[in-house]
């Protein structure tokens, strides 16, 4: 099933706001963003997206090719591209962060980038994944799985 992710205009507005926030050294916390108004990255809020093994395989492949460059193979945020990033990519093993972040926020970040959720705009969007909510959900599962790592 394919779902629309809604409008992008707001994400742009958010990105501008976030950029302003970053310059001032005070990126807004996640709960300051109006998630209802921003485009939704998946059906997570309404009903869980069915994730198949094929989706998980594709997600693993995508994580390796797109995410690990900065986030690292083990999600520590220590990929080869991370050295010069400021702020640094998050350590996905951080249990506190895992508790506070919503599934929807993770999925939205994957599709629309950090700027869409008030985080670093250096986290790039993956616009082609808007048409693949199950793969995005599988990527979110993968990010969640890092919490269990030592």
């Amino acid at each position, binding site marked *: 099933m394919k779902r629309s992710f809604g409008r992008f205009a707001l994400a742009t507005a958010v990105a501008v706001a976030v950029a302003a926030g970053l310059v001032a050294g005070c990126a807004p916390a996640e709960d300051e963003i109006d998630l209802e108004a921003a485009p939704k990255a998946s059906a997570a809020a309404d009903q869980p997206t069915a994730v198949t093994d094929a989706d998980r395989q594709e997600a693993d492949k995508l994580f390796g090719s797109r995410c690990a460059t900065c986030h690292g193979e083990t999600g520590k945020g220590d*990929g080869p591209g991370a050295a010069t990033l400021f702020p640094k990519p998050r350590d996905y093993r951080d249990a506190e962060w895992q508790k506070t972040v919503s599934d929807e926020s993770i999925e939205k970040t994957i599709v629309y980038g950090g700027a869409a959720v008030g985080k670093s705009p250096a986290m790039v969007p993956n616009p082609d994944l808007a048409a693949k909510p199950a793969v995005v959900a599988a990527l979110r599962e993968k990010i969640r799985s890092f919490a269990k790592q030592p």
Partner: protein
Amino acid sequence: MNMPWNGRSRAALALATGLALAVAPGCGDGKTRVAGKGGGGSASIAELMKARDLSEADVVAALKTYTPTGVKDEFLMFASGGHGGNALVIGVPSMRILKYIGVFTPEPWQGYGFDDETKALLASGSPEGKTLTWGDMHHPALSETDGVYDGQVLFVNDKANARVAVVDLQDFTTQQIVHSAILRSDHGGAFVTPNTEYVIEGGQFPAPLDGSVADIEKYDDFYRGAVMFWKFDRAKKRIDPAASFAIEMPPYFQDLADAGKLASDGWCFLNSFNTERSYGTGGAGLPPMESGASRNDMDYLHVINWRQAEQVAASDKAQVIQGVRVIPLGVAVEEGLLHFVPEPKSPHGVDVTPNGEEICIAGKLSTQATVFSFARIKEHIDQKKYAGKDPYGVPILPFKDVIRGQVEMGLGPLHTQFDDKGFAYTTLFIESKIARWSLKDLKVIEKIPVHYNVGHLSVAGGDTAKPDGRFLISMNKWAIDRFADVGPLLPQNFQLIDIAGDSMQLLYDMPLPLGEPHYAQMIKTELIKPWEAYTPVGMNQLTHQPDPHAPKSAQEARIERNGDVVDVYMTLVRSTITPDTIKVKEGDTLKFHVTNVEQTRDATHGFCIADYNVNLSMEPGKAANVTFVADRPGVFPFYCTEFCSALHMEMGGFLLVEPKNENAAGTAAADPPRNRADAKPSADGEGG
């Protein structure tokens, strides 16, 4: 909105149904809506047709070519870019240009000819001391396995400078350019043997093979033609010049070639014109070349046994001329490697049928295509049944005994290709038509007008052992009135023709605004399997191996100085260039070793430095090196040239080249590279 395939099919059906209703007067309600609301707003199909003055045939053609977003073309056409020196990749049936491949000409988008490796590559096929920056690309040849395109490699020739290049279809990049020192031009390349054992390159203009200068009056004695057989090493994906050889030919203008296949595997057919050996007026009142070369009714099809020639070339009967192993003409005759068959008149295309049993030759100045039987040619060669010899002793087979027949074509037949239903298609240059004819009956069935002056044609798989048919591209030299006027220099016109049905239908015109696109080959898209990125990170585009200088992560980015040589190990990732500040002295040699450390598909960066002619294309994972002397003091921004992310504009840095003169360092440059304003802004920003 991304519509699933069945949705699209339904839409197409609805559209077609609407169309049928719309074109049957009084049958429809005229309210059928076009999916997606095209340029005509929300008009109905009937209204759109009326507004745009489209016939039913036009709309059917549109339905056959329109390719919705995200849908890929069924075929890829690899076309020559003519004297643009680049190859083109075009999707069929949409006729969308997908790629230029820099081959003989620097190509800035790909950074081709800008980094150290591709600069050296361009120079490698050039005469010593010169780097050629163009080529007259003519005939692309896809690599073949068992006589069918295998999608691995593309070969192209440069007629003007007698070069052949190898393009790897894993990354669509040029990997090698070779030049045979004994050839001065090469209209007859590139053509491959059925398993890509050899790439055939026939010369056109004869000249002394040893590179010397002989008086033109001594043309018959000292000028010679030649055909190169470049050995292709499939494992290395490179031509192996040391294992390649040539055969010396009489000073006729050797022309196009085709390798035999299946029944005729191991043989090569090369036609010729100017067997009159005209060299023009000679400055002495002789007939000009075009008439001097057109007096004879017959020229000679060269029939070459390349498998046997391979053996002779490896023996001491071959001579080395300018570093090329050459089988002398006399040896080729003695060993039975070369036979001639008369062919009418000033022929152009030589095309082996899919089963390899026959050879179709169209004579530019004849009105016929002649179908030669390989079995009869072979029988006459085996039994030495000759009709005579040419002035150089090459045996000539009797024309009438080795042909199956001739097809009355029309004016100016040039090239022939084949489909999957037993039809052959021949271009008629003078008539501006394409003739479809039956190979079995040797009869023309239908002709379709094209616009105008058609040269080559390309049918999907049309020169292989298994043609796909379906689509034909008519490659027209002139467009005249087909497109909006754009000045005296007009584009060429590729016309897409549907050949699947009982009758041919012209579907679409595609202007080609560069060079003289010449010939193309069309392959099923699914047979091409390119890389998504260079993996692992740090791969060199030319070696396809890890580049020894490439930094693989931002941690490895650094600047190292050794005397006046500065190595900059640089990484690119969205949206950072590391290092972003580089300070050197005027006169330093800078060696940039740049890596895009990303693996994300399509996350290509560029890297340019102002005023230093530095321009790299850095596809994901690719490493490239560029060396230059910082001979101009000043501040030179560098940045990423691909809009890679929302922070693309921020992806840059500064190269500071301090003047040699120590006293001037740190102040305004003593010898400013550009006019500079003397005024400085005041602290509050209101200066100037």
